[in-house]
């Protein structure tokens, strides 16, 4: 029998997308629809004295101009709800759907124009006169807590928004007994979302029907439903959210945005459908992303480089508001101490407000920061003790015989961080072999003979995936014999349909092509969570598997009655149930489904329920921990500071793979995102809080021409936490990329003793380090 789980099934999503028949938010056109554009703050921090929209309102084709005071909501003074309340938040400051009397970052919503066309709406924006009183802005998180720092918000006396700590073991003892204590300070900068589809919202109100229907380019339709219903004071059942095709998410589309309130409310007020599509320039300031963290760490180790303790302080640039609680800060420190068994930890993270776009998770969330930090300390030990960093890792990895291993840290929900399974030693050896690490010395020497500088860098990571508490699925056999799967989980290109079809097909003896799929519409599945944190395979995988297994049981029981055979003699294959040894005695899945779907006058067989279906919310019992080791080989031009990635090797373990081709796609895409973080992507603000990089000439995304071929080898250590043995795979490419690249650059420049304390490592920064090292050597 063909088994689809584990096979490289070609994606079922693709023919539609390849022929231009996808359906993204901007592709939906409703009768009578108007178009919106937002006026956004041009100041990083200012008081709004007045807004005069009279000239805009007079423009032909303009249907209305709205400010916060004009919105028909229960309380215009009410800021947006905190999505993730937490006791670590000291100042829970969220923004209003549109600014009231103060703007706190460039790009903040100030007013909306609704017009016959987007062009007219944009014309009208230029006619709105806002009288701003500029206020001092705080921009750099490293100085935001200084005595003379301006306040990001009027009326506050500190920019500290929250404080987190992760501590376990006896940290003082660890440092007291250490042979060595090494410290390192470094700044990390991660870029923004930059999904190729910007955000978009389309809303229609049917006052006598189902209420509001909203199409949003979101990762989390149920979060949008909850937050919007809360803000409007209306039942969730009167708010329907649909995420149609979404052109990439990467985290920032998982939040809840001002536009997701304003567009539906104004659509309702005007009695017309209203569409807003973010333009790319807006995306740079209106869509959240990640940015800066300053890390100051100390590591204690013995004479062999075995780590005993890690401590330090982190400052996190939160931007101007805290829409997403402390999730990004949490995920920065909960992965510590990474792949290593370190008995003591004590880190504190300060969340500070700045007058910049709010920060929320981007691919990997805080994990790339945390893993980078611990990998930096490994590199520091290796450099100081003159031990190869791969060997330092070997001496410190959590061993496979220690699994399940509790690090001592706690997750957001208070549960202990527990590594469920994995073999980090074997994974690193696989990566080193794939990279021909042993042959590198010869390659380096040959290159040096030509005056070229090659370097190699290793990194390791763990990734907590599959966060709960659930993501359900309904599996139903249609009278046609096809299988319909419905789930709340939205896709942004990951291939959920194909992955789930493979799992369900194996349970029900059909082909993946026979599995229909509907997702991400709150009217079609009652409750979901969303697509974040590499959680769908580890949640919808098990729920679809479980629901399909239940349907299979019903199928066999009903077929046994129908065919007058014993259940154990039945075979379920090719969409039919057959009696073993008597292949002509059979009944199709469609015929069985029809028996449970009679019309008036018919009868459902005794002992069965109508509709051949089952629903499950089975997920993973805990967070499956994926792992990986990466090796980067780079060439550095010491004259220009250009870094070329020559070779990139990944050994990755995300448990059992449903579709290895799609896993590779996730890993490669993730690695390239991480290389972008390491070398290119930089969102720059000047000291007034004005963004300087708001197009793709100024903000560099990784291109095909700069990316290496990426080699991958998989290790499949099943997760014991779900029946499929799966772990998430969406972010494990990104997390270890920057530390491998940065270590490789340092390795290439080891003659100069260059130590990198910032990324992205752009040519200006790197030539500065090389020149400084050269000057030092000359002295």
């Amino acid at each position: 029998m063909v088994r689809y789980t584990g096979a490289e099934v070609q994606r079922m999503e693709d023919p539609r997308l390849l022929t231009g028949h996808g359906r993204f938010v901007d592709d939906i056109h409703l009768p009578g629809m108007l178009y919106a554009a937002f006026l956004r703050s041009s100041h990083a921090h200012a008081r709004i004295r007045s807004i005069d929209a009279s000239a805009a309102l007079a423009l032909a084709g303009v249907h209305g101009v709205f400010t916060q005071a004009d919105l028909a909501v229960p309380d215009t003074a009410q800021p947006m709800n905190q999505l993730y309340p937490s006791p670590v938040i000291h100042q829970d400051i969220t923004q209003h759907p549109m600014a009231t009397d103060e703007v706190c970052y460039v790009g903040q919503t100030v007013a909306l124009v609704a017009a016959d066309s987007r062009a007219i709406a944009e014309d009208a924006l230029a006619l709105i006169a806002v009288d701003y009183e500029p206020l001092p802005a705080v921009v750099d998180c490293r100085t935001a807590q200084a005595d003379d720092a301006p306040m990001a918000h009027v009326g506050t006396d500190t920019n500290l928004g929250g404080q987190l700590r992760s501590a376990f073991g006896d940290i003082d003892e660890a440092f007291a007994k250490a042979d060595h204590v090494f410290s390192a300070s470094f700044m990390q900068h991660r870029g923004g979302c930059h999904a190729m589809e910007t955000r978009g919202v389309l809303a229609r109100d049917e006052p006598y029907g189902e209420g509001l229907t909203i199409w949003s380019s979101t990762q989390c339709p149920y979060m949008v439903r909850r937050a919007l219903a809360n803000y409007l004071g209306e039942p969730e059942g009167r708010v329907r959210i649909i995420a149609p095709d979404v052109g990439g998410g990467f985290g920032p589309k998982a939040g809840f945005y001002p536009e997701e309130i304003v567009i539906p409310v104004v659509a309702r007020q005007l009695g017309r459908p209203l569409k807003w599509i973010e333009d790319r320039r807006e995306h740079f300031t209106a869509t959240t992303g990640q940015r800066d963290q300053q890390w100051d760490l100390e590591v204690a180790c013995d004479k062999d480089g075995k780590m005993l303790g890690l401590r330090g302080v982190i400052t996190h640039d939160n931007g101007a508001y805290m829409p997403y609680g402390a999730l990004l800060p949490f995920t920065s420190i909960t992965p510590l101490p990474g792949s290593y068994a370190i008995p003591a930890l004590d880190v504190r993270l300060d969340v500070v407000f700045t007058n910049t776009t709010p920060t929320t998770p981007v691919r990997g969330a805080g994990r790339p920061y945390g893993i980078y930090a611990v990998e930096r300390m490994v590199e520091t030990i290796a450099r100081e003790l003159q031990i190869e960093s791969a060997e330092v890792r070997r001496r410190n990895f959590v061993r496979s015989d220690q699994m399940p291993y509790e690090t001592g840290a706690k997750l957001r929900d208070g549960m202990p961080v527990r590594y469920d399974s994995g073999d980090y030693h074997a994974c690193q050896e696989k990566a080193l072999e794939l990279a021909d690490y042993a042959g590198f010395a010869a390659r380096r020497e040959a290159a040096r003979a030509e005056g070229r500088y090659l370097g190699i860098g290793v990194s390791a990571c763990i990734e907590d995936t599959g966060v709960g508490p659930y993501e359900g699925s309904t599996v139903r056999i249609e009278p046609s014999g096809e299988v319909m799967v419905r789930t709340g989980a939205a896709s942004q290109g990951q291939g959920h349909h194909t992955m789930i079809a493979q799992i369900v097909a194996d349970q029900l003896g059909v082909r993946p092509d026979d599995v229909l799929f509907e997702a991400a519409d709150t009217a079609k599945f009652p409750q979901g969570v969303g697509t974040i944190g590499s959680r769908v395979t580890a949640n919808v995988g098990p729920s679809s598997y479980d629901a399909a297994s239940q349907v299979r049981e019903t199928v066999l029981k009903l077929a046994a009655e129908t065919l007058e055979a014993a259940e154990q003699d039945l075979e379920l294959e090719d969409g039919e149930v057959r009696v073993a040894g008597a292949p002509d005695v059979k009944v199709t899945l469609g015929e069985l489904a029809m028996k449970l779907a009679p019309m008036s006058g018919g009868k459902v067989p005794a002992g069965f329920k109508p509709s051949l279906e089952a629903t499950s919310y089975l997920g993973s019992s805990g967070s499956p921990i994926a792992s990986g080791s990466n090796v980067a080989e780079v060439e550095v031009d010491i004259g220009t500071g250009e870094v070329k990635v020559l070779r990139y090797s990944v050994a990755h373990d995300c448990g059992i793979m449903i579709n290895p081709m799609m896993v590779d796609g996730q890993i490669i895409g993730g690695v390239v995102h991480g290389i972008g973080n390491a070398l290119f992507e930089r969102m720059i603000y000047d000291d007034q809080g004005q963004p300087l990089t708001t197009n793709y000439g100024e903000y560099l995304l990784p291109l095909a021409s700069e990316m290496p071929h990426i080699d991958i080898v998989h290790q499949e250590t099943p997760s014991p936490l779900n029946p499929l043995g799966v772990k998430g795979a969406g972010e494990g490419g990104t997390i270890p990329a920057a530390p491998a690249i940065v270590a490789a650059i340092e390795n290439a420049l080891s003659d100069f003793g260059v130590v990198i304390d910032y990324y992205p490592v752009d040519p200006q920064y790197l030539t500065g380090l090389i020149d400084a090292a050269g000057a030092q050597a000359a002295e």
Partner: protein
Amino acid sequence: MADTREITVTINGETETREVETRLNLADFLRHELELTGTHVGCEHGACGACTVLVDGEAVRSCLMLAVQADGHEVTSIEGLAAADGTLHPVQQAFWKNHGLQCGFCTSGMVISVVAFLEDNPDPSEAEVRTALSGNICRCTGYQGIVAATLEAAETLRGEN
């Protein structure tokens, strides 16, 4: 009142005559006037390549060209690439087989760009493919599947497989 002009464009083999605003770009003309929404707009400043279409056989960024400039010309968008019976173009087929797409948003422009590139260079090296693709941004795939698809499509178009 907005300045308008009548234009006649051949689009995917069909002739269309429309009165359009002179400031309307070709991408918006295709998407909103002709309802050919397969052409996607990713950056509106000619950097991402998502909106690439063929104009008289040449790859063009439709966000940087006005609709009136297409008057009298022949435009092929992603919807016009597959055969009338639905058979995918070899480039589309190769993207499917090699996992050359994830979210599908950049895909239309990628596929069109590759079609034009392989017309000019039917037997490219991997390095040439990567250079050719450097005008199209993909955030999902890391490009590797797209590069593989382009090389495979080149073989198919040369009649080698």
